[in-house]
């Protein structure tokens, strides 16, 4: 193995949700939620028209 200096990094530790990161997170959460709302507004245009028939006809043979 090539010689090199390795800086010992602290091992990762489990982090519970920290108070300091909460505001940023909920802001991002709002953003994601609004994006989801926009997507749901327009999604019917791309969805398969007859869901029941589509699901019924989606039959695959086993593979691998």
């Amino acid at each position, binding site marked *: 193995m090539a010689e090199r200096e390795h800086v010992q990094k602290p*091992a990762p530790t489990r982090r519970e949700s920290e108070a300091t990161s909460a505001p940023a*997170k909920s802001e991002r959460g709002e953003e994601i939620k609004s994006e989801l709302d926009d997507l749901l507004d327009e999604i019917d245009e791309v969805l398969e028209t007859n869901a029941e028939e589509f*699901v019924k006809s989606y039959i695959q043979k086993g593979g*691998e």
Partner: protein
Amino acid sequence: MAIPKTIGIETEFGITHRGVDDPDPITASSILIGAYVAATHQYVAGGGSPVSWDFIDETPGLDARGYAPTGSMAPVVETHLVNAVLTNGARYYVDHAHPELSTPECADALSGVRFDRAAEIIAQRSMEATSAILPPGEEIVLYKNNSDGKGNSYGCHENYLVDRSTPFGEIVTHCTTHFVTRQIYTGAGKVGSEVAGVPASEVPFQLTQRADFFEEEVGLETTLKRPIINTRDEPHADARKYRRLHVIVGDANMSEVATFLKVGTTAILLALIEDKALPRRIEFASPVAAIRQVSADMSLARTLEMADGTTATALDIQWELLEACSNYVAQRGTDNTGGPTAEAVLQRWEQVLTSLSSDPMTLSTQLDWVAKYRLLEGYRERHGLGWDHPRLRAMDIQYHDLRPSKSLAARVGLETLVGIDEATAGVTDPPSDTRAYFRGECLKRYRADIVAANWDSMVFDIGADALRRVPMMEPLRGTREHMARLFDESDSAADLLRRLGK
């Protein structure tokens, strides 16, 4: 001693043929691949047939445990179906009743993501090429998922090169632990359960497509009684030095982050197994029960029964594996785990576990199961539907539709790790840092003189005398670094073979 982790991903696509009364998936798969091969001129010049796969080294019945258990079913290799080798070093063929694309050998997880994305583009171009030749009203559509929701599953397999001297039992123990628990970020999400007798009300939505189909801990089968650890022992490389771990337990991912973590974490863990660097064995009381339990538990909070009588959650175990892998990389570097990519894997792994520990829903642009769940739950709430409504099952399938105009995964804002230009270049150009470079460049430069190719050799016909086979038993030889000058100096395959001393 850990060796560099050459990796590859094989994807069997779901396929439908619309506009015909009695669709046959084998015919549809053959039409699809044939159309792509023709449209991209993947032909032997003058010969009219695509460069074919050479089956001489295919021995899928060999078992890593050193024996073939009585009554076990070795996979059947179907040699009569369409089977092409592409200039990016991939293999594209009809496997059972699905089109399957095996990526070229990749030197790290990021390269794996790039060629997995290139495979999607190849699938898209195949659908376009097929549309051009089918009668009006017919269409062949591909899905990158692993289940039809009716108990039929098809795979997305991962391959990792490991040191032959590593006891297989060690791989079984530690990989089982990882495969059961990594589902919390590798899952592609699924509505309902396909385990007989489990009602939709019990499992309205689960993390993975595949967990329902695993019934054994270890075995050779891939199509029935699927095992968590597959023992196929077919290294496609020097069998004295290498083993190829063939992983059949994962989901196909639409999310690049999920593919990156799936392959990246497994590659690092394998290095720890080779170097005996894991501090302890973490074993489940029942791995098969555990894999289903983890998949069915969206709260990520239910504890698993361990063999030593204690309990732990999948998250607890993933934190422990991450810590072991981080310590290993800090002490020994990343030479055998994918270089700088390994550092990126560890960072992403920690970030994703942190989010899963606090609020998994914040990962809706990174993990497939979260993205799919949020979309379906949002739709369900808005329209007041139950989880058993066909609309939600239809959206589950359509998440994986590979047509850009229809794909729901393409609409949920998934983060990408590879630029579209890089991915598109991967459709035609091989990776530069594995033997796939040799395969792909030979196909680009000397196609007329190549009669067959497989993972570990190429066969040339340069005229008068016997066919010449060039063995490629070392997956990391034949790279651009080794070959670029030789290729530049060789105007013909005969030139190249002379310089190679063949």
